[in-house]
């Protein structure tokens, strides 16, 4: 771990932080990325949404994410995309490249959104999907036979219920597939009745685990009268050797194979974030992991960030250190990632010591999937057109990006990665110019 002065300091270890750091490096400047963990990206599903739905009384589903952004800006003119849309392509390229360098392949569809089956038995809209889900994408009109495989004891994914649900749900999206399901019993972990995605993924990372899985799938398929065109599996084909495992399963089964999208499990977030970190290191970023920034001060010349290095608890206070740079990019996440925190009913951005407002029960819509989205999600830090934090006291040295920004609702819009990378690339470039 190197504690050294770099041109720019990025706070946050998720997709936004990674892209901001990449932009700084593209500008020929040095960067340190400080983070405790991957924040919201640590629990992501592994695919990338850019702009899926324009929220409103009648939500608009976006076929193309770029057209979707235009439609969104027509309804919400002050949306943060209005400030950073022009950097979307560069941001997406940066993220895809970092992930690829770290061994995580992402595929786009010429600007179109696609639908990916998920663990809930429905379909999620995405602009980019990982190699692990490329074959899972719904193909409207394709009359294919799809086998959904579950693993006995893995209650996180019920293959029978999921297949029945996909069968019905696909009709809304033009799907014409026939879904089948089966539950295989993997014996590698003894006689335990319940297993989690993590245990399954860890077991499938071993040679014996993968061999057992392939043997079971082949046995099932050879004893079945149908030739399946596609096999869907829960998102648990390994933490580490996932792409290698997928290729081996495809070879053995001679059909398309893919995972369904996770709605946050321990496996997909690990794959995605660790690939980004490997990509960042390969590109030359200085990663300061396991470190929390507690306080930021700016002067006319630069920024200093007081940090605590190492995990902290009652016995371990961590080690204090100060990181210095010319500018800082705040990519600390929003409500999920930890950049925005609640103090009772008040909502604060702790690092800026900035109160955003209050959220009380009366303000919340009881309908969790209200098509207009929850209003409070639009709270966040306000930024100027160049992504600079719009507060006088920071000497123009602090920029912000990602879900900590105000005027966006990534949950209802299905726009989290798009907003993150577009705003982060712009913030990174601006910070590098300081």
């Amino acid at each position, binding site marked *: 771990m190197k504690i050294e002065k770099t041109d720019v300091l990025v706070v946050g270890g998720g997709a936004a932080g990674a892209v901001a750091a990449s932009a700084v490096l593209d500008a020929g400047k040095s960067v340190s990325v400080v983070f405790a963990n*991957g924040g919201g990206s640590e629990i992501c599903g592994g695919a990338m949404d850019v702009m899926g739905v324009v929220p409103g009384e009648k939500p608009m589903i976006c076929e193309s994410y770029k057209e979707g952004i235009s439609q969104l800006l027509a309804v919400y003119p002050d949306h943060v995309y209005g400030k950073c849309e022009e950097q979307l392509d560069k941001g997406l390229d940066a993220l895809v490249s970092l992930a690829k360098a770290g061994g995580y392949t992402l595929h786009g569809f010429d600007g179109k959104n696609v639908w990916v089956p998920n663990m809930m038995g429905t379909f999620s809209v995405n602009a980019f999907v990982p190699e692990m889900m490329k074959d899972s994408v719904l193909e409207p009109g394709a009359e294919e036979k799809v086998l959904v495989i579950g693993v006995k004891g893995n209650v996180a994914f019920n293959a029978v219920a999921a297949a029945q649900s996909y069968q019905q749900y696909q009709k809304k999206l033009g799907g014409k597939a026939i879904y089948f399901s089966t539950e295989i019993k993997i014996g590698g972990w003894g006689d335990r009745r319940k297993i989690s995605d993590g245990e399954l993924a860890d077991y499938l990372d071993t040679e014996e685990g993968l061999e057992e899985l392939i043997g079971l799938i082949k046995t099932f398929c050879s004893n079945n009268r149908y030739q399946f065109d596609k096999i869907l599996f829960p998102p648990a084909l390994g933490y580490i050797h996932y792409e290698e495992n997928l290729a081996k399963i495809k070879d053995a089964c001679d059909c398309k194979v893919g995972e369904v999208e996770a709605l946050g499990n321990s496996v997909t977030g690990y794959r995605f974030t660790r690939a980004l970190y490997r990509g960042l290191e390969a590109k030359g970023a200085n990663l300061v992991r396991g470190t929390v920034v507690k306080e930021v001060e700016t002067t006319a010349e630069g920024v200093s960030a007081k940090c605590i290095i190492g995990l902290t608890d009652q016995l371990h206070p961590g080690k204090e250190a100060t990181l210095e740079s010319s500018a800082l990019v705040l990519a600390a996440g929003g409500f999920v990632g930890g950049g925005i925190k609640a103090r009772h009913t008040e909502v604060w951005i702790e690092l800026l010591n900035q109160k955003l407002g209050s959220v009380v029960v009366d303000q919340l819509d009881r309908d969790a999937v209200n098509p207009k989205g929850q209003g409070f999600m639009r709270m966040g830090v306000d930024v100027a057109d160049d992504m600079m934090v719009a507060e006088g006291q920071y000497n123009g040295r602090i920029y912000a990006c990602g879900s900590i920004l105000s005027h966006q609702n990534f949950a209802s819009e299905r726009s989290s990665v798009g907003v993150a990378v577009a705003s982060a690339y712009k913030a990174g470039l601006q910070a590098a110019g300081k």
Partner: protein
Amino acid sequence: MGESMVTQEFSKLYYRTANCLTSDIIADFAPVSRIVGVDTSAGLGTVFTAMGTRFDMQYVAKEAFMATDSYESDTRSIDDTPVNEIMRYVRHEIIEGDMVPEAYKPIVEAAKTGSCIYNQYKETKSGNEDADILFLISPAAPDAAKTAEQFSIVSKTIEKSVYCTNQYKDCGYLALQMGLFDEATKQINLLKKQMQQYNVVVTDDSYILDALLVLAPEMAEKIRFIDEFVMEYKNTLKLSENETIMLHQSGVIERLYPEKSVDYKELFASAKIVTPARCGYDVTDSGLAGGLGLAVPENLMAISGRRMADLMKEEHDVIITPCAYEAVGLNCAEKEKVITLLDYICK
């Protein structure tokens, strides 16, 4: 100082721990959970389901002692929940309530009295007490006399005298992990007196290092982990190995004291250093967990066996670890022999 149980209301933390550990994001991220499983039937993990109220801790006695992951879970807690700290508190409550599971009773007793839990332990002292360096040998070392001899060779090469001993056992580490702070303090006090005589205190046991830094923070400047010490003198020691070295790092160092982490590519400049995918801040431990892992040997063997599978996957000439305790844990898997850094540089 980060927020901890000292500054947060316990009941709030308790439920947050239960929630985040059962989210299928953190529970999986501990070697124990990955091996013995979590009961996800009701969306709750086995280890934490019975923690439904703070008064029912006795029902999770076994699980609380089993949840020894050296902070791996904490690395993924995105809302700063000190998972390990909560489990330490639960262990303490269970001990206070005299509800310690049978398998853990000898370990708890040893922690209280400061005795050693290892059958092979034999008190060892070598060198003069008025030496330049105090070297604290891991109580888990299979042959403490040999370890002392190895470190004496190192210190002779750098022209320093050394006093080696394992008389302080784990220096209060297990007592700390059970929330027995008075016992831990008692165990460290004698050692503290002795430590004052030396300019440098070195240990080859990352758990001892943790205990020293927690219980004697005023002497932190003179405390070194073995690889940190070797790094300081690498030019004098002339380390010129050119093998492919598979490195198993210490979770205690990488997560709690990352500023002490040593770059082995710099330490062994002419060797090829390889690490498994789970390394650095994500490193997975041997499962011995400072001794608690001994109580359920089948779990220990499964966890260390899993880690060994990762360590053996890539081509290498030798597997080394700086921590003598971790070497013992990994060797419980009875696969390829893992040697310590000291073994390696003295070979």
